[in-house]
C-alpha cells in the first residue's frame, strides 16, 4: 500500500522551499528566490500557502533600511517534510 503524498509538498517550488528551510535555521526571501530561481510573485504565493498550512513561519523586518522577510520551518513543517520523504521512499522501493 502506497502512502499518500502530501499535495502541498508535492510541487516543485514548495518542495524546493521546504528543502532549503529544513537544512538551515532561517533564510530570507531573496536567498530562497535565488536558490529556487523563481519569480518574486510566484514565491510569495507559495510561501503564503506553506505559512497558512503552518509549515513555515514568516517574519517581516528590516535589514538596515531595507525590508526583509525571513522564513523558518516549524515543527509541523519538519514532521510533514519527514512524512513526505518517507512516502516518496516507499514509492521508489515498491516500484
Amino acid at each position, binding site marked *: 500500500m502506497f502512502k499518500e503524498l502530501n499535495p502541498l509538498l508535492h510541487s516543485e517550488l514548495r518542495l524546493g522551499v521546504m528543502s532549503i528551510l529544513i537544512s*538551515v*535555521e532561517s533564510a530570507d526571501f531573496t536567498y530562497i528566490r535565488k536558490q*529556487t530561481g523563481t519569480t518574486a510573485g510566484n514565491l510569495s504565493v507559495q510561501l503564503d500557502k506553506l505559512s497558512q498550512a503552518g509549515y513555515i513561519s514568516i517574519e517581516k523586518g528590516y535589514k538596515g533600511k531595507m525590508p526583509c522577510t525571513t522564513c523558518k520551518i516549524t515543527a509541523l513543517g519538519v514532521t510533514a517534510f519527514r512524512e513526505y520523504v518517507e512516502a*516518496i521512499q516507499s514509492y521508489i522501493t515498491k516500484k
Partner: protein
Amino acid sequence: MQDRPIDEKESLALIAQMIQNTQQKLELGSGRIFLSWGYITIFTTIAVWLALRITNNPHWNYLWFAIPVCGLPFIILRKRNNLGVRTYIDKIIKQVWIVLGLTGFLLSALSIFNVMWSFPILFIIILIMSIGSILTGLIIEFKPLVIGGIFAILIGAVHYLIKIYDVKMLTFALAFLAMDVIPGHMLNIKTKKHV
C-alpha cells in the same frame, strides 16, 4: 522552479540538491570578523602599553574598552551584509562567541575597575579567546584556526610565566596575531579561491 507536480525521483533529486546548496560553510570574507577583532585587540594593546609606559597613569587601562566599542560596529555591519541565510553552524558559532565574549568582557571589566585586581586577566582572556578560535575551527573544519588557537594557548603559558610587564603586553598581542589575524587572512584566501 515552478508550482508544478513532480515525480518521486525528481522529488528526491530536488531535496538533495537544495540541501547541498545550503551546506556551503564558508562565504566570501569569512575571515573578516577574526581580522577585525584581532587587529583591534593588537592595536589597543599597543596603545595601552605605550600610554602606560609614557605616562605611568593607570587610568589609561580604561582604553581597553576600545576593544568592544570598536568591535561592535563590525558585528552589526556583518549582520547586514550576510547572504540571507543562517545555518545551524552559524547559530552554534554565534552562541559560542556570545558566551565566551560576555565572559571575557565581564572578567575584564571586573579587573579594570579593580574588583578583581589580583586576577591574571590578560592570561585568562588569551585562554578564553583561544578556546573560541579552536572551537570555531573545529566546527567549520578549518585547521589554521585550531592550530592558531593552540599556539595562542602556548603563548599564553609564556605570558603567564614571564613576569616582565613589557613581555606580558607583547605576548598578549602576539597571541591574538596567532589565533585571529593569521587564520583570518588564511580564511579569506581560502574563501576567495572557493567562491
